[in-house]
C-alpha cells in the first residue's frame, strides 16, 4: 500500500473529497502516479507559483481550448482505472448512498467499460439517479443541462463522461475526486465558471493537479483547438479572450513548453525511454523535474548541449517516496468541497496555459500514462475485443518508444490510434523488455477505452453526442500514420496482429487500407506473402484483366494446370491485396474454380468456393446457381447432411429454379433415397461441370448400388443391366469395375452375374 500512497501525488487533480474520509488515500491507485511526464511536472511546478493568481480570474476562457478529445481520453483513462480499482476494493464497505452512485460495475474486471454506463444514466435529466437527492453538490446538477448543451457541439464522445461524473462529486464524498476531475478535464466550461465563487485554494494544491492536463494537451497543436472554442454557446468565451487569458496566465515568467529548446525535449524523451520499469519512470520524472526547472530558471537550458547531458541517475528512489506523501497532503486540502469551484477555475487556466505545449513532451507523457493499465484482466478483455492492437502488443511486448525515433514519429504516437501499438511493437525490439511491455499494454487499454467511448456515442446519447471539429484532421493524421506504417514496416507483426476470426486474407485489414498496384506484368508467379505487399509488384485491375485472358488462352491451348493454377493464385492474391471485390473478382474465382474442378484439385476448388460464397453476397453473377449446385453436390460427396440442410434453408425459390440447382437437388433426392437408377441418370445428364464433381463419389455410389442389385436379383442379372443402371459408358469399364470387386459370373453365361455368389463375396469385402 505504500506504493499506493505514493501514487497519490498525481491525483491531486481532484478538488475535493479526500478530506471527508480517510479512505481516499487508500483508494488511490498506484497507476495514477505513473501517468505522468517529466515535462508535465516541470511545467507544473513552475506554473504553480506564478500563474495561480491570474488563473483564478481568467479561468473560464482558458481551460477548454486546450482540451482535445484524445488528450482527454488519455486522462480519463487514467482516472477511470484508478477509480475503478478503488471501487473494487471498497464497494463492500461503502456506505449506501455512495455506492448508489458508483458508476462502476460491481464485478471484478478491472477494465473501465462499466463507466460508460454511468454517464448514460445521468446524462438524461429524467433519470432518477441523475437527480439523486443525496448529492451534496446541488449546483452541479443544476448546471448540468447547460453544461451538456455546451458540450454537445464542441466535444468528442469521450467527453461525455465528464458531465455524468461531475454530478457525482459531492464535497463529502470519498471518491468524488475523480469524477470532479473528469469534469474538469472534460471541460464543462460553464461548470467551472459558476464555481469560481468557491473559496480559494492554495496555489500549491494545483501544482499537482496540473500535470495531467499538461500532458494531455501537449498532444495537440494549439491551432487545432481554436475550432473547438468556437462552438456556439453563449457562455463560451470568444477565442480572442481565451488567447488573451492564456497569455496572461502563462506569462513571461513561465517558460512554456513550446518554448523549450528542442534538444531539451528530446533529452526528456530519452530519459523516459531509458527507463526500465515504472519505478524508473517515476524516479526519472522526479529527477528531471528538478533538473529542468533549475536549468530553465538559470537559463542554461538554452545553452547547454542537451545531447550530451547524462541521463539522470535513477538511484533516487528515496526521494520519490518522500515527495509523495507531501503531495497527497496537498491533495487532501485541495479537495475540500468548498474550494472546488476555484479549483476548477484554476484547472481551466492551467490547461489553457499548457495547451500550447509542444507535442514532443506530450508524446512521452502519453506513453507513460498509458502504461498504467491496471491489471491483466483488462488485457484479456482487450484481447478479445481488439485483436489487432492487442495481439500486436502481445507479440512483441518489448517495444515502446525508441529514443532514436524522430520527433515527428513520436508525436504521431501520442495521438495513438490503433496502429500505434503496432508501430511501436516493431520499434526497438527487445531493447527494453518489461517496461515497454507495460507501456504497450497501457496503450492498448487506452485504445480500448477510446473505442468503447466511441461506441457508446454511437449508441446514441444524443444530448451528449459531441462533435469535435478537429476530428477530421485527427482522422487524417491517424490515417497518414497508418499508411506510412503499412509501407515501411515489415508485415510480420501485422500477421500476428490480425488474428481476426476470418483468417482469410479477405479480412478487414485489406479493406481498410487498400493499396493500388503499379506492376504491369501480365504474368506473375505466385508467392505467398510474408511481408507487406509492395505496390510495385502488385498488378492493378486493368492488368489483371489481361492476365486472366492470357491464363485462359494458355489453359485452353496447353492444359498446363500447374501453370494455370499458379497464375490464378497470383491474380487472386493481387485482388485480395488491393481489396478488390467486384464482378471481376467473381469471374477470377469462378474461372479458377472451374479449372481446379476439371483437374480435380480439391483444395483450390474449395478455396474458390468459399470465396465465391462470400462474394456472391456482394456481387451478382450469372453463375450463382452453378456454383451453388456444386456446393450441394459437394455436400453429397462429404455426406454432410447438416450443411446440406443449412444450404437448403438458404435456397431461394429463384435459385431452386436454376437448372443447375434443380439438378443438384434432384440428385440429392435420388441419392438420399438410394434411388441409384435416377441418380445415375442424373449423373449422365449433369449440367456444366457437375459431372466432374460427381465423379469424385460415383464409385462409392456404384458400389452401394451394386450391393443392392446383387442382393435383390435372383438368380442372375445381366451385365448390361448393371452397365446401364450404373451409367457405365461402355461394357469394358463395367466389366473392369465388376471384376475389380470380385464379382462372379454365371458359368453358363458370362454375360450374367451370379448374384448369390457375388453377393456373398461382395459383403465380405
Amino acid at each position, binding site marked *: 500500500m505504500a506504493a499506493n500512497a505514493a501514487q497519490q501525488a498525481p491525483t491531486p487533480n481532484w478538488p475535493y473529497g479526500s478530506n471527508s474520509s480517510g479512505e481516499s488515500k487508500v483508494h488511490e491507485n498506484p497507476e495514477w502516479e505513473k501517468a505522468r511526464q517529466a515535462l508535465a511536472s516541470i511545467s507544473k511546478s513552475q506554473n504553480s507559483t506564478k500563474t495561480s493568481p491570474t488563473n483564478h480570474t481568467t479561468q473560464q476562457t482558458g481551460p477548454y481550448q486546450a482540451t482535445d478529445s484524445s488528450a482527454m481520453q488519455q486522462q480519463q483513462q487514467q482516472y477511470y482505472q484508478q477509480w475503478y480499482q478503488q471501487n473494487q476494493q471498497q*464497494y*463492500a464497505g*461503502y*456506505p*449506501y448512498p455512495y*455506492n*448508489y*452512485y*458508483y*458508476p462502476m*460495475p*460491481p*464485478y*471484478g*474486471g478491472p477494465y473501465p*467499460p*462499466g463507466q*460508460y*454506463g454511468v454517464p*448514460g*444514466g445521468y446524462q438524461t435529466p429524467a*433519470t*432518477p*439517479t441523475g437527480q439523486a437527492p443525496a448529492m451534496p453538490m446541488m449546483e452541479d446538477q443544476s448546471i448540468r443541462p447547460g453544461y451538456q448543451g455546451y458540450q454537445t457541439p464542441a466535444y468528442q464522445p469521450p467527453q461525455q463522461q465528464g458531465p455524468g461524473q461531475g454530478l457525482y462529486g459531492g464535497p463529502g464524498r470519498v471518491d468524488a475526486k475523480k469524477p470532479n476531475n473528469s469534469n474538469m478535464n472534460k471541460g464543462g466550461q460553464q461548470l467551472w465558471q459558476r464555481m469560481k465563487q468557491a473559496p480559494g485554494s492554495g496555489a500549491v494544491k494545483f501544482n499537482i493537479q496540473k500535470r495531467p492536463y499538461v500532458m494531455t494537451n501537449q498532444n495537440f497543436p494549439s491551432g487545432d483547438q481554436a475550432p473547438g472554442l468556437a462552438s456556439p454557446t453563449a457562455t463560451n468565451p470568444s477565442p480572442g479572450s481565451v488567447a488573451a487569458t492564456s497569455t496572461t496566465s502563462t506569462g513571461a515568467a513561465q517558460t512554456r513548453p513550446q518554448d523549450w529548446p528542442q534538444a531539451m525535449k528530446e533529452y526528456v524523451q530519452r530519459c523516459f525511454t531509458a527507463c526500465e520499469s515504472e519505478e524508473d519512470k517515476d524516479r526519472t520524472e522526479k529527477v528531471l523535474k528538478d533538473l529542468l526547472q533549475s536549468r530553465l530558471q538559470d537559463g542554461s537550458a538554452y545553452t547547454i548541449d542537451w545531447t550530451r547531458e547524462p541521463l539522470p541517475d535513477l538511484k533516487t528512489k528515496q526521494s520519490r517516496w518522500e515527495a509523495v506523501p507531501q503531495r497527497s497532503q496537498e491533495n487532501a486540502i485541495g479537495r475540500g468541497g468548498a474550494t472546488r469551484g476555484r479549483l476548477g477555475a484554476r484547472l481551466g487556466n492551467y490547461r489553457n496555459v499548457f495547451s500550447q505545449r509542444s507535442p514532443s513532451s506530450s508524446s512521452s507523457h502519453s506513453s507513460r500514462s498509458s502504461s498504467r493499465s491496471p491489471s491483466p*484482466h483488462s488485457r484479456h*478483455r482487450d484481447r*478479445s*475485443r481488439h485483436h489487432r492492437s492487442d495481439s500486436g502488443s502481445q507479440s512483441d511486448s518489448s517495444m515502446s518508444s525508441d529514443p532514436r525515433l524522430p520527433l515527428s514519429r513520436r508525436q504521431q504516437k501520442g495521438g495513438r490510434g490503433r496502429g500505434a501499438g503496432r508501430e511501436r511493437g516493431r520499434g526497438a525490439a527487445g531493447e527494453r523488455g518489461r517496461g515497454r511491455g507495460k507501456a504497450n499494454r497501457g496503450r492498448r487499454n487506452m485504445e480500448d477505452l477510446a473505442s*468503447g467511448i466511441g*461506441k*457508446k456515442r*454511437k*449508441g446514441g*446519447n444524443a444530448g451528449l453526442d459531441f462533435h469535435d471539429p478537429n476530428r477530421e484532421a485527427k482522422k487524417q493524421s491517424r490515417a497518414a500514420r497508418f499508411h506510412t506504417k503499412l509501407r515501411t514496416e515489415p508485415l510480420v507483426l501485422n500477421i500476428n496482429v490480425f488474428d481476426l*476470426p*476470418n483468417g482469410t486474407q479477405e479480412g478487414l485489414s485489406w479493406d481498410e487500407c487498400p493499396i493500388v498496384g503499379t506492376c504491369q506484368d501480365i504474368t506473375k508467379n505466385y508467392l505467398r506473402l510474408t511481408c507487406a505487399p509492395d505496390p510495385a509488384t502488385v498488378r492493378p485491375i486493368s492488368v489483371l484483366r489481361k492476365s486472366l485472358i492470357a491464363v485462359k488462352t494458355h489453359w485452353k491451348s496447353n492444359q498446363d494446370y500447374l501453370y494455370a493454377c499458379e497464375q490464378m493464385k497470383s491474380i487472386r492474391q493481387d485482388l485480395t491485396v488491393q481489396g478488390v471485390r467486384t464482378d471481376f473478382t467473381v469471374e477470377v474465382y469462378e474461372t479458377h474454380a472451374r479449372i481446379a474442378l476439371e483437374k480435380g484439385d480439391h483444395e483450390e476448388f474449395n478455396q474458390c468456393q468459399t470465396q465465391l460464397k462470400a462474394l456472391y*453476397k456482394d456481387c451478382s453473377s450469372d453463375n450463382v446457381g452453378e456454383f451453388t449446385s456444386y456446393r450441394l453436390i459437394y455436400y453429397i460427396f462429404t455426406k454432410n*447432411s*447438416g450443411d*446440406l*440442410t443449412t444450404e*437448403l*434453408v438458404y435456397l431461394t425459390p429463384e435459385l431452386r429454379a436454376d437448372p443447375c440447382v434443380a439438378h443438384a437437388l434432384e440428385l440429392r*433426392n435420388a441419392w*438420399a*433415397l*438410394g*434411388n441409384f*437408377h*435416377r441418380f445415375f441418370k442424373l449423373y449422365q445428364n449433369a449440367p456444366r461441370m457437375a459431372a466432374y464433381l460427381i465423379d469424385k463419389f460415383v464409385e462409392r455410389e456404384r458400389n452401394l448400388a451394386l*450391393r*443392392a442389385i446383387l*442382393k*435383390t*436379383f*435372383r438368380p*442372375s*442379372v445381366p451385365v448390361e*443391366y448393371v452397365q446401364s*443402371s450404373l451409367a457405365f459408358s461402355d461394357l469394358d469399364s463395367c466389366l473392369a469395375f465388376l471384376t475389380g470387386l470380385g464379382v462372379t459370373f454365371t458359368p453358363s453365361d458370362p454375360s450374367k452375374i451370379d448374384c448369390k455368389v457375388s453377393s456373398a463375396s461382395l459383403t465380405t469385402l
Partner: protein
Amino acid sequence: MAHITLNQYLQQVLEAIDSRDGAFCAEMLSFKHPHVANPRLQLSSPEEKSMHLHCIFTMCSSFQAHKEENWALPIMFAATLDLRIFANNAEQQLQSKGKGKVGDMLEKAAEQLMSCFRVCASDNRAGIDDSKKWGMLFLINQLFKIYFKINKLHLCKPLIRAIDSSNLKDDYSTAQRVTYKYYVGRKAMFDSDFKQAEEYLAFSFTHCHRSCQRNKRLILIYLLPVKMLLGHMPTHQLLKKYDLMQFADVTKAVSEGNLLLLNEALVKHETFFIRCGIFLILEKLKIITYRNLFKKVYHLLKTHQLPLDAFLVALKMMKVEDVDIDEVQCILANLIYMGHIKGYISHQHQKLVVSKQNPFPPLSSVS
C-alpha cells in the same frame, strides 16, 4: 428487489461467497437477476457486456484453484449460461449488420466453455461429492447447444465419450440428463442411428418435466420422424396436443402408402421441416411409403409372384414422374436390400417374388 442498490447487491454477493452459497450466488450473478436492470449498469454498447462475462470467467479460473470443493458450480453454470446467451445475441447482431463470420461468436464462447469443461473433467482428486465433475454435464449441454447451432456435430463426439465413460452419468440431475439425451438423440438421428436416437429421445421425452411443454414439443419434433421411420405412427391427439399438425399429413401419407400426399405434405411444410433440420429425415419416410404402397399392391394381387408392371402402375397412380420399369426395379432392390421386403427380383421374368411368410416384415423389426 428490483431496485436494490449496487451496494446492497454487492453485499449480498459477498455474503453468498463467504457462506459458500453457490446457488444463491449464482442467482445473484446471473444476468437474469434484477441487478442488471440497474441504470448504472446499462451499457449502450453490447460489446461492453462481455465485461460482465469476463469477470465471471475470471472467477471461473479461480474456481479451478478451489481444490476439493465444488460449491461454486452453480455460479459457473450461471456464468456459462449467460455467456452462451450473449454469444447468441452477439452473433445475431453481427449477422444482422452483415459483419463477422457466421458462428464466430459462438465458437469463441464454445472455447471458453471447453476450458471450463476441462477444469471440471480433470478434477480427479476430489471425492465424488466434492468433485467438479458434477459440472461436466451442464457444460456439455451448453456446448451441445452451440455445436448444434453452428453445425459442428462432430465436435460432440468427445463430449459424448466423456459422459459415456463417466461413472456419474446416471446420477446427474434429471434436467441435465434430459437435455443431454435430447442432443445425443438428435445427433444419433443425423448419423442415421435411429435405434439409438429413438432410445435417447424417448428418454428425454418421458423424463422431461410435464410443465416444459415447449421442450417436450422440441423433443417430439425429432422423436416423431425417428419413430415413424421405425414404424410407430403418432396419434392425431399427440400431434394436436403439441401443436405439431405439420406432421399430420405426413403421418397419414406414410401409413397409407400415399406417396402423393407425402410429397404434398413435405412440400407444404418444407420450410418448417428444413428449419428444424428434419427434412432430410422425413424424406426417408418415402422409403417406408413405398413399402406400404407395394404392400397394398401385394395384398391386391394376392400372389407371391408380382409382375413389376403392377408396381409401375401404382407409382404412376401416385404421379411419380418419368418412372420406368428400371426404376421400379431399383426401388424394389432398395427395399429388399434394406429388409423391408423379403423376396427377390427375377430380372428374366420381370417379376418380384416375395416370401410366403411375412413378405413385409414389421418396420420395427427392420433396420
